[in-house]
């Protein structure tokens, strides 16, 4: 039973979730009069069929991993950071501003410099909300949402005042030395926007996994998140821990923004809305139930669906709105995998009931990370 359940929760449940999502999507497409099989073939060939497509999927997952990690770290400390997008935006601005301010530095200095600038800017932005929460008990949901707007309009004002070229609404391109996208990678992936930033994202995944599981700070973050009073009683400082988790969270989001600044766009434009990596990052983190390794895969799933989804309407006459509904239903089922877990547990219930060991409890015990860490 035990082995079977591990196998179930490890592979069968996510796969079933995805399958059910695809099935619902297929029903929707069929009801709307479009061919689901052709569309799914287009979707997966559009995401994985060419080096260009794979490059785009990896590129689109790169910032999502960082913002999702940012959300997860704050969430472990019981802090619901909705300000991911704003923190990413200030990080994006800082990275581009740094790169354009020091155009003559060699790559070995300018890239780390721009990344540090982005991380500091993001940390500063989240730190404001962290400080108010830690020392004045201000609700972080409100403060981070409001800081998002301040970030959007303040960065727009700065870009318009100091960074635009002529009449335009965008800054000039960053110097070649600062670009994470290189001619070699473009050649390799048929001019996709794939860039070296993915190395940073993957390193960050393992670093955060290590930080949360193996360090004192990680332990404190989790302890404060579970029960602030108990943590205080145990001699930890909840205020310091909240600040630390929020600074790490903001720094990660800032780096996520730098991925857009140094890798994807290589400049910054006057944005009409907050960058989507913010809210998508939150979905990725929730989908992965806070597990850093899970975030790696969830971000790749998001990238596959969003890049593959574009191909559906390009290769057929299916409107993008239908594609969005299909993608949303897949994500919905993956997110609602608890239901599927519950069904599996019911199906595999031993024929003779053994009191005290219900199958459901057994399954959840295998995954203490999942579905428990998300709280507001």
């Amino acid at each position, binding site marked *: 039973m035990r082995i079977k359940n591990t196998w179930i929760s490890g592979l069968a449940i996510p796969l079933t979730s995805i399958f059910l999502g695809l099935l619902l999507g297929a029903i929707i497409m*069929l009801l709307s009069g479009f*061919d689901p099989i052709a569309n799914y073939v287009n979707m997966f060939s559009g995401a994985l069929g060419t080096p260009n497509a794979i490059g785009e999927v990896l590129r689109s997952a790169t910032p999502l991993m960082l913002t999702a990690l940012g959300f997860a770290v704050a969430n472990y400390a019981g802090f619901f950071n909705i300000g991911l997008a704003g923190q990413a935006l200030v990080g994006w601005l800082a990275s581009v501003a740094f790169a354009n301010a020091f155009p003559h530095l060699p790559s070995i200095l300018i890239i780390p410099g721009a990344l540090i600038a982005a991380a500091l800017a993001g940390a500063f932005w989240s730190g404001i909300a962290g400080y108010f929460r830690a020392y004045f008990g201000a609700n972080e949901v409100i403060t981070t949402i409001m800081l998002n707007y301040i970030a959007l309009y303040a960065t727009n004002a700065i870009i318009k005042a100091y960074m635009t070229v002529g009449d335009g609404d965008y800054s000039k391109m960053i110097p070649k030395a600062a670009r994470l996208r290189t001619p070699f990678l473009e050649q390799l992936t048929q*001019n*996709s926007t794939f860039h070296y930033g993915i190395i940073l994202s993957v390193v960050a995944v393992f670093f955060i996994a290590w930080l949360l599981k193996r360090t004192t700070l990680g332990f404190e973050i989790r302890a404060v998140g579970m029960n602030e009073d108990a943590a205080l009683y145990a001699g930890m400082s909840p205020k310091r821990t909240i600040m630390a988790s929020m600074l790490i969270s903001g720094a990660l989001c800032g780096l996520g923004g730098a991925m857009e600044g140094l890798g994807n766009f290589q400049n910054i434009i006057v*944005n*009409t809305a907050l960058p989507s990596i913010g809210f998508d990052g939150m979905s990725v983190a929730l989908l992965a139930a806070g597990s850093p390794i899970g975030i790696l895969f969830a971000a790749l799933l998001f990238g596959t669906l969003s890049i593959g989804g574009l191909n559906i309407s390009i290769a057929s006459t299916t409107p993008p*709105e239908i594609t969005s509904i299909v993608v949303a239903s897949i994500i919905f089922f993956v997110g609602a995998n608890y239901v599927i877990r519950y069904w599996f547990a*019911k199906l595999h219930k031993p024929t003779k009931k053994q009191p005290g060991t219900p199958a459901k409890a057994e399954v959840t015990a295998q995954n203490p990370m999942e579905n428990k860490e998300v709280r507001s």
Partner: protein
Amino acid sequence: MKISHKLGMIALVAVTATVLGACGSKKADDTKGKTDPKNSVALVTDGGGVDDKSFNQSGWEGLEKWGKKHDLVKGVGGYNYAQSNSDADFTPNINKLIQAKYAMIVGTGYKLHASVEKAAKANPKTRFLIIDEVIDGQKNVASVTFRDNEGAFLAGVAAAKTTKTNKVGFVGGMHSAVIDRFEAGFRQGVATVNPKISVDIQYVGDFSKPAIGQSLASAMFNNNVDVIYHAAGGSGAGVFSAAKNVIKNKKVWVIGVDQDQTAEGKYAGGNLTLTSTIKGVGTAIEKVADDAMDGKFPGGKTTVYGLKENGVQLIKGNMSDAAWTVVKDYKQQIIDGKITVAEKPADVNKYLKK
């Protein structure tokens, strides 16, 4: 319990079988029309869909018209559009369209500048058209810009000739080079007719927040403004809602943008859309696609559409005949070069006749 679960599973299997079975027999739709890969055209939106009641919609309607005129199929080898859900989708969309072998790719909006430029350099055999932005020195890119300020000037004239309170308003989407032209033209138009009319300028800060557009417009109407011109894309819907709320108490007007927005102004007692400035994004796309078909693709060139070229215009709408006569008069003066319309709000006073 158990039976219900088994039933559930059976139902699931049945549904799966039905869906999979049905898939096989379904044929691709929209098979009307022919394919012409050498002249196929696709459009990439600058965010949002082709139903934004504004810029992207106008472009797509022009492309659709062109496709139907040449009896082309909607889809690969004919004409189609790719929707960008965020700015990060521009490059993947363009690359996917290139892989689908579209001969010409249209980028609607200044935001696509960098993506189009880069793709054009990497794919010299594909033709590109960028709207509202100029890409220089690239032989496979044609640029089209609009003198929106000229249309907005006429909107200003219409507003000045219609207002009873001597107070008019302008609701912009976001400060940008393009919206600057609308604001400058409108202010100059109003001031040319009557410098005593005050113009209340407000910006939503977003092209898709009708709620903010509505509150800004309500405040203006409360302040005795009776004509508002909006250049706010989707946020402009809020301006119309605000007007419909106050129309029961007093007469107010809204001037639409980019497309004929008469339909947006319908209310129980009539229509409150005074007129609309039309931006010929669709006409421009149609023209360039036709030129490309005839082997005259204007690559490397920038075409500017103003009143003279009929690229921007103001329709009569619900304007009074007296106002319409004055508008036509000013239109002729602009076409003849007697009036130069400012492109930036800061320059308005410079161009006003003393």
